[in-house]
């Protein structure tokens, strides 16, 4: 079972690493950022057709897109679907994960499927889901859940399995009920793992939402990007990409913050090395 521990906890602790070098890096970062933008601008201006997005025109498009009701609606739809999907995923994923972690029989019964589905490239289920759920937002939710749930389940299972035996023995010798052992020992002990799983799951959920919108032309940020880039409005479409990147980074920062705020005893750096 040590294999699965490697899978789920060895994802790099990105925000922490960035925070460590935060102290003296402002000037080189600014210079690099400007250099990247400049190279991009020059390359596109000299080599690419006029519709291709470049920093100057994307910048001009930002205010226009941000007040565009169509864009705001798309944004709302995607965000809502991702939150809904992630909420379902966290509840269901944690439940299955705790069961797997605490019951060896259940674990052996179900692990082969969890590992198998987790190893599948998630987007291959799209044709099937669109067949099952039709060209509706249900397909998007289903894709988000499928993309995200296994990351949470596997991490929570690791967490629930790693509860120190002494804690459980103490609880038993005080005759605590199974329910209170679960809610007061197993779940809190699995929290850091749940958060690590959530970090992976949130990124995958975002990908799932975008891919589903591409595939079934369901209104959302992904479809907004697809539609605008097809009609050669690359600048507007790129604002959508920037926003998605912002969500991706936002999720990372949120998890890093929550880990430090609520679980100061848990140091991911020590666990990964």
């Amino acid at each position: 079972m040590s294999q699965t521990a490697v899978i789920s906890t060895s994802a790099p602790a990105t925000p922490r690493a960035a925070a460590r070098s935060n102290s003296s890096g402002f000037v080189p970062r600014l210079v690099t950022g400007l250099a990247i933008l400049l190279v991009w601008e020059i390359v596109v201006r000299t080599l690419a057709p006029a519709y291709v997005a470049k920093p100057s025109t994307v910048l001009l498009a930002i205010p226009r897109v941000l007040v565009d009701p169509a864009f705001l609606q798309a944004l709302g739809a995607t965000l809502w679907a991702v939150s809904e999907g992630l909420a379902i995923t966290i509840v269901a994923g944690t439940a299955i994960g705790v069961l797997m972690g605490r019951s060896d029989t259940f674990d052996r019964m179900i692990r082969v499927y969890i590992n198998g589905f987790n190893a599948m490239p998630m987007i291959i289920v799209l044709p099937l889901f669109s067949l099952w759920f039709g060209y509706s937002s249900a397909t998007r939710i289903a894709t988000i859940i499928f993309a995200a749930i296994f990351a949470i389940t596997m991490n929570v299972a690791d967490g629930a399995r790693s509860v120190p035996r002494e804690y459980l023995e103490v609880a038993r010798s005080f005759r605590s009920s199974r329910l209170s052992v679960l809610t007061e020992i197993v779940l809190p002990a699995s929290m850091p793992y749940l958060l690590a799983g959530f970090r992976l799951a949130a990124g995958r959920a975002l990908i799932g939402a975008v891919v589903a919108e591409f595939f079934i032309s369901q209104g959302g940020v992904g479809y907004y990007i697809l539609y605008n880039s097809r009609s050669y409005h690359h600048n507007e479409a790129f604002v959508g990409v920037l926003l998605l990147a912002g969500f991706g980074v936002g999720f990372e920062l949120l998890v890093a913050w929550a880990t430090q705020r609520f679980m100061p005893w848990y140091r991911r750096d020590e666990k990964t090395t």
Partner: protein
Amino acid sequence: MHLTILRRHAPLWLSIFAGIAVWEIAGRSTSAAFMAPFSETLVRLWQLITRGEFIAQFIDSSELFLTGFVLALAVGAPLGMLLARVRVLRIGIEPYLMTLYATPMVALIPFILSIMGFGFAPKVLVVFLFTVFPVLYNTVEGARSIKPELIEVARSFRTSEWALWREVMLPYTLPYMMTGVRQAIGRALVGMIAAEFFLSSTGLGQLIMGASQDFDTAGVFASIFVIGLIGVGLTRLGLVIEQHFARWRQ
């Protein structure tokens, strides 16, 4: 001894058989447009294999996968070590790297399509973009964790820069790089299918798309089943590679 082996493995086989049974029953009791039973899926899979359709698409996909993957490795690994070696460069680039790592790369596919069109190159680019960041990121992490003493000792023996890279940086970084490779394998597979879905339809992606457009449910299930198995196999391979190299990371 025999009994413990039996007790360990029996639940696994039981659960596989139970899964197949559920699949078979669900497939038979719902409409054929909705789900194909396991037996029918296997028959369809056999047809795909014997007709040579599957092999051709598999080779097609493999070319895409390998080209993108090798390119990502060839760019990501040296660049990662360079970033770790040159401090200013690393501090400057790291936040942007992190942003790109967290960006859902699928969102770039429509741009790639409308700028580069339908050839082989845009698809390789998609696989490359999905793959390069985990490799790059883990290599930087690894090369950064080299103990400064190692480099100082090498320096005090007047090691050349090239020898330093070959004898210290590369061996030390390799296990981390392989963690990146393991993570990248899964992503490359997603990138490959995404490219085959949304750019020109070829390979294993085309196999599913074609089947679903023909309402050939058994074909859809057969393709998903096979691609799932390929995914499981590649993930296993990634773990084996990672653990092989992890042995010399103390």
